């Protein structure tokens, strides 16, 4: 038997690219071949067959794609799948209604609604029969359907915490007509107003209110995300089938259903980031064609004309990329930094592959420009982004260090801070989903290496994927748990590509049967459903129901909204108000009040509410922070906070509240003669502190 080429890669293929990669590959292949030749024959045959399949260049043998000359686009299963998705949306609406009524089957109906969307679309996308147009239509429909589920959960008002923060910035722009107005709820958002600018444009031109405008803005962002992701993957893999599979896998990332569908700056920045990668990759492709013609252009007229056209295309692609890049930079900081990291890594890989001299590499140039723009944005006067980001990472790293060194214990998984355990089926689903993703990555990376190792962006994706297992360790910390979830939205871009390559290579279309289709669809649906449950958190986070304390969407109810609206009507806007987390966002938006908090004012107001007496320390906080009104939510004395804190993560006893707040601590203000109790709606009471602090000025 031939002892070489067990890996399926012979030296001639491996050395076709100039520079360092060829030499590395030669050595690498020889080592692998020698290792494999030492294995017993059955094992060698299995591994050989696996490697042969993983490196098969003809795995995608689809003939059912739109040809350039086709003028008639065939819909295939698309209308039927659109109906399936619509039924999924209806079923999710039904699950929300059941949840509002307090019945117990709501989670089951919700899970079924997700399966109605994922399973049929995945089956069709895995099939080789779907046309390119059909695949694009299917992924767009699935993406929009998942977005509509989020709207159906709260169709009349904002309900997620971050939405209120950006609503305030949007309203400030609407009222003042100018940017960079201070926002105490999220000071950094005023310096990254891209999404709010778009909202302002549509709102002023259409006359719609901010909520309805926001729905459309994020809906458009969702379409752009899905389309750009599909086109990027298609460009990388040269296969619409792989592109469709990668896109549907991406939709199973923990943040796709809720977090990246909410009115927040990441929801717009992420689609623009994917577009920047697409445009840069198109530029690379055009640049390769340009280089190919350059040598013959002086002597062949056709080549000269084509060369001129390509130069023009490259120039315009650069312009488009730059414009989108600027939009990303001024829309969301973290997404921008992720993009910078990807571009820098991509440039590094590109240089390592020696595919082009450094000074002629477009990726290097765009990476430098991106980095420079990020620095310019960060250096805007008053921009707190450096403190904001660094404090977040510092907290996560410090906590991880404490856990690893035994100073503090690891965060218990699958348990809320009120002690409520996560249902068994959610735990199994979540663990299974992550295990499937993590176990598929090595095979996917191997397939990527065998098929696409000459492609710089593919290698970059492969390297990024390695970060995902590493960040999982932060799950055992309180602050870092959010870091892991946030990183999933970014890391799933390369993860979905790698897994799609694995599926396409290991289950080539010529041997694909219905059994394979259903099995793969089932596995991908488990990944999607588990990822969604992981991102949404306990089902209380998404499913509506009775009021819960410090539970974000479950804490937004009419009494709080009406109290906040009352403050604006009768107290006027911009009063300095101290209150708990939920009423902060309500008073800051519906009430248009100036919220006193630890982010903007660097003061911990929780002692005012937690202490049994309004002593000198508490009065000192009120006076120093110039608090004019205290908004007391009596429900803090009835339940422990679901998130682990009532005010913010830095409050006294955060994540360790063993009982609700003592009711006496919240009613103590009634006995202080200098405090006027001006409002009482039962659960919410408002005190005027003017008598205590001698009429502090309005902010």
């Amino acid at each position, binding site marked *: 038997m031939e002892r070489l080429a067990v890996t399926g890669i012979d030296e001639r293929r491996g050395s076709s690219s100039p520079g360092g990669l060829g030499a590395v590959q030669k050595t690498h292949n020889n080592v692998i071949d020698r290792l494999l030749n030492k294995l017993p024959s059955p094992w060698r045959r299995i591994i050989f067959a696996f490697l042969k399949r993983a490196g098969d260049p003809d795995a995608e043998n689809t003939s059912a794609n739109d040809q350039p000359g086709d*003028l*008639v*686009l065939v*819909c295939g299963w*698309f*209308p*039927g799948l659109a*109906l399936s*998705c*619509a039924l999924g*949306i*209806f079923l999710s*609406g*039904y699950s*929300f209604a059941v949840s*509002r*009524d307090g019945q117990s089957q709501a989670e089951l109906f919700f899970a079924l609604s997700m399966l109605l969307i994922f399973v049929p679309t995945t089956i069709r996308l895995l099939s080789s029969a779907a046309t390119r147009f059909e695949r694009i239509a299917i992924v767009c429909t699935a993406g929009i359907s998942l977005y509509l589920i989020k709207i159906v959960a709260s*169709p*009349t008002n904002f309900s997620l915490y971050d939405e209120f923060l950006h609503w305030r910035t949007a309203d400030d*722009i609407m009222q003042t*007509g*100018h*940017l960079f107005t201070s926002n105490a709820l999220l000071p950094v958002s005023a310096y990254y107003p891209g999404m709010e*600018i*778009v909202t*302002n*444009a*549509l709102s*002023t*031109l*259409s006359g*719609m209110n901010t909520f309805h405008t926001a729905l459309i803005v994020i809906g*458009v962002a969702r379409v*752009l995300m899905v*389309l750009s992701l599909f*086109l990027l993957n298609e460009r990388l893999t040269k296969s619409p089938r792989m592109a469709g599979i990668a896109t549907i896998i991406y939709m199973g990332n923990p943040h796709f259903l809720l977090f990246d569908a909410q009115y927040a700056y990441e929801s717009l920045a992420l689609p*623009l980031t994917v*577009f920047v990668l697409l445009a840069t990759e198109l530029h690379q492709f*055009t640049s390769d064609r340009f280089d190919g013609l350059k040598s013959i252009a002086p002597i062949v007229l056709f080549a000269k004309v084509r060369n001129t*056209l390509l130069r023009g*295309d490259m120039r*315009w692609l650069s312009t*488009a990329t730059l414009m*989108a890049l*600027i*939009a990303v930079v*001024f829309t969301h900081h973290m997404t921008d930094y992720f993009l910078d990291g990807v571009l820098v890594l991509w440039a590094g890989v590109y240089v390592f592959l020696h595919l082009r001299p450094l000074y002629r590499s477009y990726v290097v140039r765009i990476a430098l420009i991106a980095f420079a723009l990020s620095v310019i944005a960060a250096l805007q006067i008053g921009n707190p982004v450096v403190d904001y980001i660094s404090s977040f990472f510092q907290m996560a790293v410090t906590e991880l260090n404490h856990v690893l060194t035994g100073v503090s214990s690891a965060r218990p998984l699958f348990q809320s801070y009120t002690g409520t355990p996560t249902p068994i089926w959610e735990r199994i689903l979540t663990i299974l989903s992550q295990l499937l993703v993590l176990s598929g990555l090595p095979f996917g990376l191997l397939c990527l290496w065998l098929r696409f190792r000459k492609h710089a962006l593919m290698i970059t994706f492969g390297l990024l994927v390695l970060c995902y297992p590493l960040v999982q360790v932060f799950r055992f910390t309180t602050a870092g748990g959010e870091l892991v979830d946030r990183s999933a939205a970014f890391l799933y871009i390369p993860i979905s590509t790698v897994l799609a390559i694995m599926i396409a290579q290991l289950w080539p279309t010529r041997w694909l049967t219905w059994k394979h289709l259903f099995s793969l669809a089932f596995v991908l649906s488990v990944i999607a459903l588990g990822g969604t449950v992981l991102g949404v958190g306990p089902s209380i986070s998404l499913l509506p129901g009775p009021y819960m304390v410090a539970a974000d969407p479950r804490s937004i109810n*009419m009494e709080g909204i*009406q*109290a906040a609206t*009352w403050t604006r009507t*009768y107290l006027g806007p911009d009063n300095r108000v101290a209150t708990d987390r939920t009423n902060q966002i309500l008073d800051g938006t519906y009430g248009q009040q100036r919220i006193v908090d630890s982010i903007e004012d660097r003061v911990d107001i929780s002692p005012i509410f937690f202490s049994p007496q309004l002593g000198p320390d508490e009065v000192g906080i009120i006076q120093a922070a110039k608090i004019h009104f205290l908004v007391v939510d009596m429900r803090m004395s009835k339940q422990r906070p679901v998130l682990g804190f009532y005010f913010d993560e830095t409050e006294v006893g955060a994540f360790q509240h063993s009982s609700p707040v003592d009711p006496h601590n919240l009613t103590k203000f009634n006995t202080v003669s200098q405090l*006027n*109790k*001006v*409002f*009482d*709606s*039962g659960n919410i009471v408002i005190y*005027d502190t003017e008598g205590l602090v001698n009429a502090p000025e309005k902010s």
Partner: protein
Amino acid sequence: MRQKNLDLLLIMAAVIVSMLGIMVPFILHFMVIIIAIPIVFFIPGYLLCEVMFQRRMLSIYHRVAFSLSLSLAVVIVSGFGLNLLPIGLNTVSWTVFLGVFNTVFCCASFFLRHRAQAQRAQALKIHLAIHDYVFLALAILAIVFSFGYTANSISHQPGAGYTQLWMLPSQTNRNTWTINLGMQSEEAATRQYKLVVLVNGKPLKTWSSVSLAPNSTWKQQLPLTAAKTGKIDASAQLYLLDAPQVIYREVHVTLQKK
């Protein structure tokens, strides 16, 4: 030629209607919304693509992605520009800017098409069978029904009602204040209340039966004059008539002569 530049004609029509919208208020609101959406999200990018690439290198799917992204980029970048103007970001500035931008690039695109005399791409047709139309119609109906069902579920959601009570003083002169009293009912049904206002512990005024329907408001003003001490402790206690022993809501203020 008519068919060749139909897209540009439609764009110009949308721009004109959009500009008319700020001058002529009786243009139907829904029409303004329908036109505003492509003007913000699609047209600027589409025109840029037409000028830059002239349908040479981008497939229709790429053109859609480029149109959306470039439109967002144009709006975001121009927002920073408009911020520098005294007028800032408002209806007039957006309408004028996007109107001028779209017009200029529309004309540029028309000129470039005319000059290039480029072979126009033939219109793509989507093949739909009868059952496809049925599926799509049912899908739209299902989505519309979902939203209707959800809205109905929210409006009929059971929840505890509540009543707001407030007291806000305003000083009219050195010795006198006006107390602004108010109640708003968010109860499930009409409730009967009794409201007692006390000053320095003694009843000043009583409303023995105030009937409030859901979502209705009751307001009153009371003048108060400071005593010799210069201090007034005023409070209002609200009772439900079907539970007259229990204070339902209470507010109080301390007024000090300055």
